[in-house]
């Protein structure tokens, strides 16, 4: 199957929908959303982050091609929509075919089998023509992405094949068949005397000459052509007769059907994948319309994280004036496993956490991000543990702590090396010292097992427990929209 979204053998991580909601990604996507189905599929793609840099670049290149090659995306969308339509029609007709074949007497009906072969031949012909059309269209662009190049190449295998015309003309021959045509068959028997093969053969394959069929040569002489022995066959409309000769048409139908299914199957995902790119292009267009710089992130295997000029996407999209959104930097060296963010209420800690996390999720889906420069590792999975709403009944506080602990225990059972865990104001509902100790214990555990994390908290006691293994940032009060500086 050809995919312009995923490289062959691409590996995927996991992001649960809940993470997208915690990071407000659903709200962000709402600004460039299409219809419900396309938006849902787009979010579905964000839930499957790519794990290898080359797989991410595969998508980034396609987006670049679509941005730079005017008309390429719209043309392909139109053609592949036709492809999907054809697939739907074909599947519908197949269902009807299945319904017919349920009745064995009907399934061995010779005229019915001829008409099914005609329908299959017609569908294959249409498909071959569409493949050639798309191939010739895509060939008119200077594409650079590996994905679109392989799509073009794959279409070319069919449309540039020396047998392309032969296949079309065979399909045309089958379309013209009818039960009154001169039909010829080759029958094969096995050692038990059963007929094991019944195949349609060309008319000139059968050499029969009867005394009545003589060619005149000259006025009085008659010359007989080659003579091959034959015997007359009195057709009887028996079950065996119908079964034997229907098979020849069924065999051809089955072969054609196999080809149709393969071709449709090869490209069946493209239309859906183009929906992802449609959303991606809308997203890029919005950023461009806001005069916001966006870049494709670079991925490093050494775990280095370096983001400069990062803007929070939700704030960008919510505000009419994008200059109001202050950019921030984020960095985490390979030797540090996590970042603890302190700061006063309202200083923008959560926004900062979100902007970094959204950047990582978008980046691993092959999307550009609103920043000046981005270098990231590939995270294997993303998890969020955000504190429960503070408006809840105080009586539920104990339950709230337990719920967070339970949530963290689920996360801990699922994380692996290179997971990215985002904790926001957890354990607020318990005693400060107990909460800090519990939180630092968890963060220490995450560090020990190779998980990268960001934790927003007001519990400065975690400092005493974690030491130098992590980085500490404090939100400055000078900025309404967050800006961070190091605290040594």
């Amino acid at each position, binding site marked *: 199957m050809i995919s312009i979204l995923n490289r062959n053998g691409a590996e995927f991580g996991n992001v649960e929908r809940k993470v997208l909601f915690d990071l407000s990604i659903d709200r962000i996507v709402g600004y460039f959303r299409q219809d419900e189905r396309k938006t849902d599929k787009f979010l579905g793609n964000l839930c499957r982050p790519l794990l290898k840099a080359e797989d991410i670049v595969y998508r980034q290149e396609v987006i670049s091609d679509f941005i730079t090659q005017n008309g390429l995306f719209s043309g392909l969308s139109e053609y592949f929509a036709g492809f999907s339509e054809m697939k739907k029609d074909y599947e519908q007709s197949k269902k009807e075919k299945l319904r017919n074949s349920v009745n064995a007497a009907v399934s061995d009906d010779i005229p019915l089998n001829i008409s099914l072969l005609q329908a299959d031949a017609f569908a294959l012909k249409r498909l071959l023509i569409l493949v050639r059309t798309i191939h010739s269209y895509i060939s008119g662009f200077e594409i650079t992405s590996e994905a679109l190049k392989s799509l073009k190449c794959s279409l070319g295998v069919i449309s540039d094949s020396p047998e*392309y015309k032969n296949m079309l003309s065979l399909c045309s021959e089958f379309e013209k068949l009818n039960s009154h045509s001169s039909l010829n*068959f080759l029958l094969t028997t096995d050692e*038990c*005397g059963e007929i094991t093969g019944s195949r349609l053969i060309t008319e000139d*394959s059968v050499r029969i000459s009867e005394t009545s069929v003589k060619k005149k040569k000259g006025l009085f002489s008659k010359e007989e052509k080659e003579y091959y022995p034959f015997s*007359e066959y009195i057709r009887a409309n028996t079950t065996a007769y119908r079964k034997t000769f229907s098979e020849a048409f069924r*065999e051809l139908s089955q072969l054609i059907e196999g080809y149709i299914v393969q071709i449709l199957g090869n490209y069946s995902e493209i239309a859906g994948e183009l929906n992802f790119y449609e959303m991606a292009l809308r997203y890029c267009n919005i950023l461009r319309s806001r005069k916001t710089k966006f870049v494709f992130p670079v991925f490093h295997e050494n775990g280095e994280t370096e983001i400069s000029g990062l803007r929070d996407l939700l704030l960008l999209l919510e505000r009419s004036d994008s200059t109001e959104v202050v950019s921030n930097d984020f960095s985490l060296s390979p030797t540090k496993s996590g970042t603890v963010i302190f700061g006063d209420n309202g200083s923008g800690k959560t926004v900062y956490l979100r902007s970094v996390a959204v950047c990582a999720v978008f980046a691993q889906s092959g999307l550009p991000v609103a920043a000046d420069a981005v270098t990231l590792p590939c995270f294997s999975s993303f998890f969020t543990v955000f504190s429960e709403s503070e408006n809840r009944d105080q009586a539920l506080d104990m339950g709230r702590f337990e719920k967070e602990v339970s949530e963290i225990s689920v996360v801990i059972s699922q994380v692996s090396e290179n997971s990215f865990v985002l904790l926001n104001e957890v354990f607020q509902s318990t005693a400060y010292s107990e909460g800090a100790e519990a939180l630092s214990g968890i963060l220490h555990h995450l560090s020990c097992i190779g998980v990268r994390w960001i934790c927003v908290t007001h519990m400065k006691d975690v400092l005493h427990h974690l030491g130098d293994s992590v980085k500490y940032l404090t939100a400055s009060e000078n900025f309404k929209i967050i800006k961070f500086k190091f605290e040594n």
Partner: protein
Amino acid sequence: MNRPELIEIDENAVFADNVLENLRLDKIFPLSVLKYLKYGCCREEVKERRSFFRALENPVFNDALNTLLEDMMRFEKTKELFRNSASETRKLYLKVRLADIYVKIITDTVRMKGFCRKTDRYAEFFSENYPNEVIEKMESDLCRIKEILKSVSEFCVSFRSKAMLSKKYQPQIYFENLKKCGDAMGLEPPVRRSFLSDFDGTLSDSFTALFRTEVSEVITLLASFGKLTDTDFSSDISAACFYLQIKEFTGKVKVAGLPVCFPSFSADKTIHFESLYDITMFNRIGKDIVPSDAHFDASAPFYFIIGANGGGKTTFLRAVGVNILLTMTGCPVFADSASVFPLSKIYLHFPKDERFENSGRYDEEVRRANEMLENADDRTLLLFNETFSGTDEKKGSEMTVWAAKETVKKGAFGLFVTHFLSVETSGFPLMQCEVINTQNEKNKRTFRIVRTENKAHSFALDILRKYRLDRTSLIERRKKGNDQYT
């Protein structure tokens, strides 16, 4: 001369209807085996069957028998197809196939010589009727027939102004042409499903007319094979299956580490089984079956078996019955070692499933017991399971002891499972359940049946211990906390 049988059945030595069922042999053997286990056999037949089973231990013989069985089955299947075929062309092909398989069967039997008397006789029959030169001629004729059939295996049918059959001439097949195109485009052809259709009557006639010379040559060559469609291998197939299925089952039992042996015949009236077990439990519990010993002699030809429910009394009864029956049918038995006085009859008295009113059930039990005892002789094994339980203890006990006395009077061997504890004082030897393990994985007690000279001890205490409700267990509960036992 008729083909010798691989298994001889003595129709007169048939066991009573309920024997196989009550011994639960249907839990381990298929019907194809049970149909032979229904009949006891003479000592000579027992010896020959044992020799057959021993020969099966040799992989060469085992393989040869399996091959023969396969070919005989193919022969019968082809015969069935022949009978059901409406087309003469198909019938001709099937006759060729029958001849081919028949020649194969003849050569299969040669491989079976020198292992046991039954198969020696079987192979001799074929070698006498089909000497080497005859076989060679058959093989060469078959070779020619196959060549002819191959030459006519493809032909063309053309529907023009009229329909005609013609010989094949470099046909251009649409399927192949289309597939060639698909290959060039990197498209895989789907896996072809198999297709089979018969010749209809007129197609068959046209075929015969088109290939007149070839068909008549095949018919001539086939004449020398005789009327193979009358040959019947079904009884040989059943017999071969019997041996192979018993062998397969005993093989599984051996792999599980349980003993299998052939009993020796004792000249005096004794029966001895060391570590005998009820193999009918094998499919359910595998190698965990508990063995017991069984010894019958002139001083103790009969036992009462008493003991707790679930203690294995019926299992022991069945173990004895099954293994005696297997001895009588020439099969291996499931014990460490065995020595058995040759018996000719087994009678079982097991409770019937039907619900009788108390008096009705008792009458029926008495009738069956009488019938068994009337037919018993000094080569009989009588097995009673909870007989006379359909009446009060006094009457039941009296009848139980009466049955024991009658058994001994007839000179038969017998076992009687009963709950009537008064039999302890009847003077007949007793067997009872003995606990051998309480610490197995499932914390479930296992028992074996042993002969006892003493009175049976209190079973009530056993049951109390089993449920940790006896005095000692109750003290332990109080010390360790009740939870541990709940």
